[in-house]
């Protein structure tokens, strides 16, 4: 067996310090160690392990920042980070944070822990740490177009097959289009009907849209794995494809983090404003409904709706899903808490891609099972394929009897065609 690669503390320190910025440093200096955030975090709730407290996850980056601060540095009062720190916190920074932002809700100092964890991951990766499967997903994205083997050829294959099977027009590489529709390889590979469902809805509303074989993957495992270079490559592909087709709108499929990165992070990562509007598919469908372009028959199954963190709590699109369900889902019961306060699925932030995190993820799912049970329904609808996959795996592991649905698919199944 090979000896594990040494942990590069210097590279990690450099990466930590490269993040030095007023916003983040204010957060790091402000924590009063009150522990309030622990109860908001699903990982802490599920495990009861004090190490899963959100504030604790920030210790290494805070330590690295303190160690270089004058006069503490000169007086030798602030120790530098060590190999042991990095080894110990690796699991906390990757496996036990979905960057869901729930902790910020209750933090008296309003510390945005999720974004700092995103930054901290870069330093761990620079040190040679990080879950192998997550890093592999990022590399696959760069080298093959997607984390899950959805190469451009495979996309063409899938689209042709779905168009044929579901008898739906699915334009690919149209020269010009108003809307560039992107995909998440999770749906393309695990829930392919989601793709034809989106196509059906856009066609129903008469939208001028296309898929592109050069910019299709909306998920960004570069960002999730702390690999800034890959994050940029993934954004650039969509940017180029959108610019080539002249798209005014890029629609993100059912994927929370894809939306978070493209809607709020992309312009900052590439260093200029995006020349198009980015909308999540729920926002886009709500827009179509507002314009009277979405005609639906009622959906009568008793159901509840799971807000993906990046769409609602950190995306501000909570109301769009409600607007879609209003007058359509006749037996919709909100779970508690809901909207911006909802409990995370446990698989965001790339945690879904880490196989070693699965046991803890399954424990987290119990929170969701209880939430759904309290609504008296047994159908859990969501707007994120990553949440859906996380639920699906845990459902099997925990033998949950409930049903999982996608809001896009149920809407596509209830279109009234003239």
């Amino acid at each position, binding site marked *: 067996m090979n000896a594990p690669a040494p942990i590069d503390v210097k590279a990690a320190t450099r990466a930590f310090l490269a993040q030095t910025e007023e916003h983040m440093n*204010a957060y790091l200096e402000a924590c009063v160690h*009150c522990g309030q955030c622990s109860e908001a975090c699903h990982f802490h709730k599920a495990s009861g392990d004090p190490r899963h*407290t959100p*504030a604790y996850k920030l210790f290494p980056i805070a330590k690295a920042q303190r160690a270089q601060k004058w006069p503490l540095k000169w007086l030798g009062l602030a120790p530098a980070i060590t190999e042991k720190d990095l080894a110990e916190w690796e699991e906390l920074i990757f496996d036990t944070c979905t960057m869901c932002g729930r902790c910020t809700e209750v933090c008296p100092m*309003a510390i945005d822990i999720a974004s700092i964890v995103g930054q901290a991951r870069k330093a761990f990766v620079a040190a040679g740490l990080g879950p192998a499967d997550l890093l592999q997903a990022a590399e696959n994205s760069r080298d093959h177009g997607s984390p899950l083997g959805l190469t451009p050829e495979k996309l063409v294959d899938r689209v042709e097959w779905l168009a044929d099977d579901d008898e739906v027009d699915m334009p690919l590489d149209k020269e010009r289009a108003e809307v560039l529709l992107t995909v998440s390889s999770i749906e393309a590979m695990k829930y392919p009907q989601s793709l034809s469902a989106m196509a059906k809805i856009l066609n129903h509303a008469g939208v001028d849209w296309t898929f592109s074989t050069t910019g299709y993957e909306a998920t960004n495992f570069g960002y999730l794995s702390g690999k800034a270079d890959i994050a940029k490559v993934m954004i650039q592909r969509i940017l180029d494809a959108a610019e080539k087709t002249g798209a005014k709108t890029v629609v993100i499929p059912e994927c929370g983090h894809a939306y978070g990165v493209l809607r709020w992070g992309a312009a900052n990562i590439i260093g200029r404003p*995006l020349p198009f509007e*980015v909308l999540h598919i729920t926002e886009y469908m709500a827009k179509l409904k507002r314009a009277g372009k979405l005609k639906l028959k009622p959906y009568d199954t008793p159901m509840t709706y799971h807000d993906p963190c990046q769409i609602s709590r*950190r995306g501000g699109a909570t109301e769009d899903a409600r607007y879609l369900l209003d007058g359509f889902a006749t037996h919709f019961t909100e779970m508690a808490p809901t909207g*911006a306060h909802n409990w995370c699925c446990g698989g965001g932030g790339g945690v879904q891609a880490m196989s070693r995190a699965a046991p803890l993820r399954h424990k987290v799912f119990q929170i969701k099972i209880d939430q759904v049970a309290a609504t008296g329904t047994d159908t859990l609808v969501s707007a994120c394929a990553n949440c859906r996959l996380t639920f699906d795996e845990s459902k099997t592991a925990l033998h949950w009897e409930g049903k999982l649905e996608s809001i896009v698919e149920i809407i596509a199944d209830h279109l009234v065609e003239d």
Partner: protein
Amino acid sequence: MTVMGMSLLDFARGPAINTAMAVFVLGVLWRLVSLLGLPRSVDRSRPKAGVPSAPMAALAGIWRHMGTPRGFGPMSMFQVFNGWIFHVGLAVIVFGFAQHMLFLKGLFGLSWPVLPTSVITLAAYVTLASLVAALVRRMTHPVLRLLSTGNDYVSWLVTVLPVVTGLLAVSHLGARYETLLALHILSIALLLVWFPFGKLMHAFLVFITRAETGMTYARRGVKT
């Protein structure tokens, strides 16, 4: 008791508190300047339509994190209530007590109506009890034990000492009034010297962090 040829009270009222105030002011300025002078990232993402202006969003953020949002779900409220009690208690004591007001008037020239000493004494006992409860929780709760560092305990100590010495001075307990008053002033000097370097600095930072989070979330159209 004498220090440098002065009575302890004169020392406390003179060089000690003056030096402490200078350290406090310069220390706080240094912390703020060294933080606000750091590079700042510009947010180039397109804000949602119809979001509030940045100052409004900042104020909303400051207000919003005063407590747990409605509909958040069960949270143990002890910490939140206890936090409110000692923060309000400290404010009542600092600004509501006649002698404190006179001291501050001497510095800033402003005066305001004060509360009866009996009310202040009661507030001080409540604050003391609340601070003790906070310490017990910090030392017994597994999460807080893990998070706590020397900074947290020192900050607690320098906060509680002025309350204790103040109560002793007002009730003339344990020593001559002059000595008690001197100890009270010295404990405040200690608090002021520690303030900029420890977590008490959160009293300033809280406006920065809450405002920034408020602005980020408002830009995204998040309503919580």
